């Protein structure tokens, strides 16, 4: 009887410590387990794989350090793929921290893949008021973007040859929103829907179930679902960063949580049965 009660009311701090252990211990483990690639991730990968060199891609990056654990690896995987395919890409943000965070990632990977700022990629920086801004953006990109995150004029084609031929949203071959919130819906409403720009999303896991509705209707053509998606994408790219390592920690922590849910339930059911047998009101 007593043990059944305890199993249902474990002090939350005991849980916290166990959770921390289940996350940190696998860091010292080197086994790597395979992961099956989901259809949505495969669709996004194939889409980028089929882009021609020099195709223009808009990376709408809207995360802050708060969700770096998921959105960071996603951004890295996508930029790696775009740089390998020699596609041109621009980064735009409605979150103040984002330009600084993604500039660092693009600069680092740019060195590795010989991708040059201004020629192969550009950082447009931070803007406010997404809806009103995007309304004009789809019609005339240079006139609405105006400057980069360094306050340099984007219409200066000598300095930014990447902007050659980029006039309206119809010149964007693929739009990918790396999103920690429902900002992706604003892109569906005012960019992808408006100019029929193919759009993919790399959301945090929280929003994954909701995005399936847009995948079914074809408003979104592919998705990299959270950290697992980034892991799947890395296995497609053949890269191996810490994300693949993180998968072990995630696995152990999940198992721990499931175990506790099951224990709590079994204890509850057993206790209920005991009470019923004792004739007490359960």
């Amino acid at each position, binding site marked *: 009887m007593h043990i059944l009660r305890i199993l249902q009311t474990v*002090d939350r*701090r*005991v849980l*916290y*410590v166990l*959770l*921390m*252990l289940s*996350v*940190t211990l696998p*860091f*010292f483990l080197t086994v790597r387990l395979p992961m099956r690639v989901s259809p949505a991730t495969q669709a996004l990968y194939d889409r980028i794989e089929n882009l021609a060199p020099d195709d223009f891609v808009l990376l709408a990056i809207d995360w802050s350090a*708060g*969700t*770096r*654990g*998921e959105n960071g690896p996603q951004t890295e995987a996508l930029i790696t793929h775009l740089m390998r395919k020699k596609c041109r890409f621009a980064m735009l943000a409605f979150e*103040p*921290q984002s*330009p600084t965070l993604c500039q660092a990632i693009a600069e680092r990977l740019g060195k590795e893949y010989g991708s040059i700022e201004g020629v192969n990629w550009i950082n447009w*920086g*931070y*803007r*406010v008021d997404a*809806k*009103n801004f995007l*309304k004009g953006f789809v019609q005339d990109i240079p006139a609405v973007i*105006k*400057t980069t*995150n360094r*306050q340099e004029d984007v219409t200066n084609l000598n300095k930014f040859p990447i902007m050659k031929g980029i006039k309206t949203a119809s010149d964007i071959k693929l739009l990918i929103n790396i999103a920690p919130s429902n900002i992706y*819906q604003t892109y*569906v*409403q*005012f960019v*992808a*829907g*408006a100019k029929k720009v193919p759009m993919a999303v790399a959301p*945090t*896991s*929280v929003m*994954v*179930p*909701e995005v399936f*509705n847009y995948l*079914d*209707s*074809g*408003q979104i053509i592919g998705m990299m*679902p*959270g*950290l*697992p998606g980034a892991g799947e994408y890395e296995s497609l790219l053949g890269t191996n960063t*810490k994300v693949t390592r*993180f998968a072990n*920690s*995630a696995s152990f*922590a*999940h198992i721990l*949580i499931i175990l506790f849910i099951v224990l709590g339930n079994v204890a509850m059911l057993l206790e209920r049965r005991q009470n019923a047998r004792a004739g007490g009101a359960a």
Partner: protein
Amino acid sequence: MSEYIVRHTDVFMLWVGALCTLGLYSMLYKENRIYRLFEHLFLGLSTGYLVAQQWVDVLQPKWWKPMWEEGRWHFIFIVIFGSFYYFIFSRKGSWIARIVIGFFLGVASGQAFQLFANDTWPQIPSSFKPLIPHPAHTVMVDGKETLIKELTNSGALNNGIFMITVFCVMMYFFFSFEQKGLFVKGSAKLGRWLMMFTFGAIFGATIMARLALLIDRMDFLLNEFGPKAFGSAQMMFAILLAMMGLVLYLALVKDKKTPEEGEA
């Protein structure tokens, strides 16, 4: 001094980062002074950063430079109109704030049509799911050959489940009549059950989302900070273990003696 900071920027960054991380995690034991201090630092830093970035990326290039440096005097109207917001603090002048707030509410309402047309609208035709299994056909549409894909038995079954789910969940959200009668009540109830699949899926997916952030934090402490500060990840792990032990001791032994105060 300034040269020292410039030379050791990375070291400072790591230590500041680790202190901030542990300071906030102290909340997991219970709400305390250290946590509150770091919480306020966080509040200040993020507010300061927001203001600075708004100035650097938006107001300076889009308003200040054209108005001040290029002499476009009429840009003053942007800030005049923008300053209307601040009348919200005055009881007498709050109607002036309502002009600008009302204007933006109006703009958002005017855009609601396009928003609806691009977001909700395409979901309607995508719900026209075929339910009868059939082989592939080619038909002429506008003088062009168009392929109608094959629909297998299992595909038809899946489409049926899809349509039933849409129907039942929508039934749950009708409010202008009582949910009475076997059909209405039954489908609304089934709708609520079917929604539980979505909510369960969101819960399960969110566990991954939050764990990913925790893993990222632990990776910072053990694999970035640990090796630089204490020489190895193992050393940092030992320190973490000690901290966890302390929390357990405080939570299970000490708090049991003094009844727990309500905490955050």
